[in-house]
């Protein structure tokens, strides 16, 4: 064994420059950490405050009874069920259209002016303010198509508004399927449709489902588009009956109900307001959680 002599000039010495660098390192890290914490604060505060204020009223009864005494008391049943109807109906309309359009755009369309126009339309549709969408819905579905103010008209308006979400997420998940898979299929004489059906679609289902969930999230939280097209101020329905609304009925909706009781009706009990807000928020968070669970599950069985 021989010992190796260490060149003294290479030995580590803590110079002023090194100390300064270390201090900067630490400072930067702390600032970043604080920013990350800052992100948590609003959510945690909102949740804690809402639940503290609403704790007295949150119960099964609150969910399943109609608002009473001019919405100053009682539950949120007709609004909750109305929101579910709107969301499901809008998904039924936007889902198939969005997915099929996305498949066409990603799998069939050549890169020409038509594809670019549709692309541009999708992007711009995503940027249209929801109040403008509401006026469009009023004009197109309620008046022009003659559907009248109804769940159908409102959910079609929501569908138009949320279409870009579905198209974009579906296209992304289709594009995530490697090109080599398609080429391998084409090489053995599979048609485009056989390739899409057997290989591309089965492997992008998780992305498409995530898109659906985001659509639901968006639709559940909107107020403006349904305000002129089908949502009403107040409506009592059969309590506990899941089929209390028809497609051509008008309905109440959670987000709009919250708006109404906080600004339009004097003398509403505060816990009714906080309770409604809490239910809306928790519903959205549950939907979001479902999306996360779905994604984790799908990732665990990723096939390549």
């Amino acid at each position: 064994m021989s010992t190796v002599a260490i060149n003294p000039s290479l030995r580590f010495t803590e110079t002023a420059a090194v100390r300064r660098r270390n201090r900067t390192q630490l400072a930067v890290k702390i600032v970043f950490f604080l920013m990350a914490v800052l992100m948590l604060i609003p959510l945690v505060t909102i949740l804690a405050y809402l639940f503290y204020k609403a704790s007295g009223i949150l119960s099964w009864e609150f969910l399943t009874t109609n608002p009473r005494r001019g919405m100053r008391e009682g539950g949120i049943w007709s609004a909750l069920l109305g929101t579910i109807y709107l969301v499901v109906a809008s998904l039924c309309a936007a889902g198939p259209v969005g997915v099929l359009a996305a498949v066409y755009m990603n799998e069939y369309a050549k890169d020409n002016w038509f594809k670019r126009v549709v692309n541009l339309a999708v992007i711009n549709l995503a940027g249209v303010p929801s109040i403008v969408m509401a006026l469009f819905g009023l004009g197109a579905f309620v008046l022009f198509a003659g559907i009248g103010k109804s769940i159908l008209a409102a959910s079609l308006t929501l569908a138009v508004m949320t279409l870009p979400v579905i198209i974009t997420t579906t296209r992304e998940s289709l594009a995530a399927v490697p090109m080599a898979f398609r080429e391998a299929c084409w090489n053995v004489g599979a048609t485009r449709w056989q390739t899409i059906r057997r290989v591309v679609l089965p492997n992008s289902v998780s992305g498409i489902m995530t898109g659906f969930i985001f659509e639901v999230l968006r639709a559940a939280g909107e107020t403006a588009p349904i305000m002129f097209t089908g949502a009403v101020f107040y409506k009592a329905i059969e309590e506990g009956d899941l089929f209390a609304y028809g497609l051509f009925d008008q309905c109440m909706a959670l987000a709009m109900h919250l708006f109404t009781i906080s600004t339009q009706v004097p003398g509403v009990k505060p816990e009714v307001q906080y309770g409604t807000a809490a239910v809306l928020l928790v519903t959205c968070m549950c939907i979001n959680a479902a999306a996360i669970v779905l994604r984790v599950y799908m990732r665990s069985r990723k096939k390549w």
Partner: protein
Amino acid sequence: MMLEKKIEVRDLRLSYGPKEVIHGISFEIYRNEILGVIGPAQSAKTSLLRCINRTIEFTANARMSGTIKVDGEDVNKVKNVYELRRKIGMVAPLPVGLPLSIYENVAFAPRTAGMGNKAELDALVEKCLRQSALWDEVKDRLDSLGTKLSGGQQQRLTIARALSHQPEILCLDEFSIAIDPVTTMRIEDVLKELRSHMTIILVTNLVQQARRLARRTMFLWNGEIIELDDNEVIFSDKAKDKRTYEYVNGIFG
């Protein structure tokens, strides 16, 4: 040897956008021969194969002119392009296991062609996997995912898939870059057997592989045929073009 033309290429030109990559080449491939294709990168070897089975049309900006005839039929005028593609087995340089089971990977092509009989499919899958020297390694787990196989196994799976639609022509595009030498030799033995009833285009970076397997070899460079002749000529000092001699002997460039 009977010299029946299997593939006939006349004045083939191919461009991607404004850039021409194949500059008017003509050659023919005879029935049941192995044609070696050698040449450095960017010499349009892969593009040439994609012209033959017309998958080149999936590349948006590709434009092809000239004629390619398979069995005397112009590929650009065939009625059923899917039938044409099934006539040609194609193996890409990088292994592609489809995200399906091993069994379904091989059964994919026959199924798309409409074969539904289980017994027939079973027999075909086994035959193809045996031909690609993969059967013994996977016979107990045909249900597991093809994408989870090792790179070398996936490449043999790709070869099995290329054989699964019982093609008359087999295009191998550098099939051995992901496989170890022992397996490569086993597949080369298979190719020697297939030669009796299949026309094979062997694109390869291994000059010696072309020398071992092919009857004739084509030296492609920058989208032009520098030389195409019998192996005895190409791999000897009788090669007509100095560049061929240099490339074959590793002193090119």
